[in-house]
């Protein structure tokens, strides 16, 4: 056995380098952002505590709050389209991959289907913009130039890129389903359809929660695709503005908008709080369900 003193010292030495970089460049900036949202910086470098004033401004100023709610609403749609289309596709493909009728081709399919997810979002955006450009004649309608179709179009580009992610999560869960369970059902005469829905599916249900929460975090952190296609004031008429572009515009500035670091930190904190709340609710629900199963 190791002596406790040795253990504590070793722990410290082994963990310290990773911990230092992680705290300094990930945790600390997030905390500083929260603090900055409570201050108002003057041009001379001074900083005064203003409490919730930045938040009140963000939520009540006519134009600023309208842009915020617009971006939040768009982001919710962006998230919903991702989940509602990606998850069923991912489930279908994972079910096909693990249906037991594939042999050596299983790995090849899995790799090929995941390739779009390895591309940079910038490249995905431009590939699709070229393809749907009316100049090229494949699509006759300017999908990105219309306030109603622009956001769904961009969301579908995201779906095209990332359907491999739910596929991989569900695939990993499906191959973990014990084989004798499946075999036993088959010997009893169950069809592959029944085997899937009655035996495999209930065992992978927990994965859906994980996929939804990860998609939530990724889409509410989204920026690259919209920025690459439509810049930092994403049109037409802000119909594709999401929280990431709003945040960027607020602290970086854009044509017609002056950069405001304090307000940027406020936007960041609002997004952060929202993510924390949703993640906390998710884990609370999962914990409760696990406990319910245990008793």
């Amino acid at each position, binding site marked *: 056995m190791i002596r406790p003193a040795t253990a504590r010292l070793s722990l410290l030495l082994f963990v310290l380098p*990773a*911990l230092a970089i992680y705290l300094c*460049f990930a945790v600390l900036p997030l905390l500083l*952002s929260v603090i900055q949202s409570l201050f108002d910086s003057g041009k001379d470098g001074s900083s005064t505590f203003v409490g919730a004033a930045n938040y009140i401004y963000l939520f009540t100023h006519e134009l600023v709050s309208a842009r915020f709610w617009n971006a939040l609403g768009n982001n919710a749609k962006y998230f919903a389209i991702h989940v509602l289309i990606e998850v069923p596709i991912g489930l279908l493909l994972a079910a096909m991959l693990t249906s037991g009728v594939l042999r050596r081709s299983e790995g090849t399919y899995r790799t090929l289907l995941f390739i779009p997810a390895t591309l940079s979002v910038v490249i995905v955006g431009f590939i699709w913009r070229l393809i749907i450009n009316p100049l090229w004649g*494949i699509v006759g309608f300017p999908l990105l130039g219309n306030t109603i179709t622009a956001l769904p179009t961009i969301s579908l580009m995201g779906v095209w890129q990332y359907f491999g992610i739910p596929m991989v999560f569900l695939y990993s869960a499906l191959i973990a389903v014990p084989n004798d369970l499946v075999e036993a059902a088959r010997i009893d005469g169950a069809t592959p359809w029944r085997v899937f829905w009655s035996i495999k599916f209930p065992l992978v249900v927990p994965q859906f929660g994980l996929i939804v929460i990860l998609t939530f975090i990724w889409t*509410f952190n989204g*920026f690259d695709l919209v920025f690459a296609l439509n810049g930092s004031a994403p049109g037409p008429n802000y119909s594709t503005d999401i929280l990431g572009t709003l945040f960027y515009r607020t602290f970086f500035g854009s044509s017609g908008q002056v950069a405001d670091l304090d307000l940027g930190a406020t936007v960041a904190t609002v997004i952060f709080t929202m993510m924390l709340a949703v993640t906390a609710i998710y884990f609370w629900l999962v914990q409760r369900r696990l406990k319910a199963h245990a008793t």
Partner: protein
Amino acid sequence: MTDLSLNARGLNDRQPWTLERIGVHAVLLLFVAIALGPILLVIMNSLKTTPAIFGGPFTLPTSETFSLAGYQRVFTRGNILINYRNSLFVTVTSVVLTVVLSTLAAFALVEYRVRGVAILAGLFIVGVMLPIRLGTIPLIEIMIGLKLMDTLWALILVYTAMSIPLGVTLMMTYFRTVPTELKEAARVDGATEWTTFTIVLPLVRPGLAAVATVTMLPIWNDLWFPLILAPNKANQTVTLGVQQFVGQFLNDYPALLAALTLGAVPLVLLFAVFSRQFIRGLSAGYGK
């Protein structure tokens, strides 16, 4: 899906083409076409002349329509070689740092059951979901303070910090599989903690590969931090370089398609080689 419901005759049947198998292959091939079609369309058209790109986007380049002019313009007018060098340097350095630091930390977090270790491990695990971009404003100030603004090292530090939680979480699952007897035997022989670590290390090699592949993609593909922390032309990564190039040459279709191809192909190839490790890393890292 309906093909699945058909009662396949004899499930252990080794006969190659049952209806069920045909159905499964058909669905998968359809989605492979959806996934790869747009990429192949871009690669194919990048090798053609402008009139041919518009005249027949779906036809393969012929001896008359074949042209590498787009690539030529990307190499002469863009900074694609500098972009590659920058992306390579940033990605490799960040991934190596992540793998080394995460492995050290994960070993200790699994090994030393002292008070507070669970909280420390938890601190890393919650970081997997931490939206680090939201700390960008203070990060800019930190980088200015460290005189690292608009350098590749700013990116490396941020990407390492961003990847460490996933690296630690993943490596912990691998270290848990190492038999205790091995470590105890080493210690009985008088091995120091560092020697014990080096003895265990070969056993977690698959974990190192998983961490490396799973953290590499988001780093190479990121647009946000290069745009904000290292926008200078000399420091642009491939993702930012392609983004800027495409913005400048909006009507030069052959050059656009060539730039997109050059941006996409290296990573796709790399992924094709390491896809097994990647997929294992992805599901083990987040599936906690």
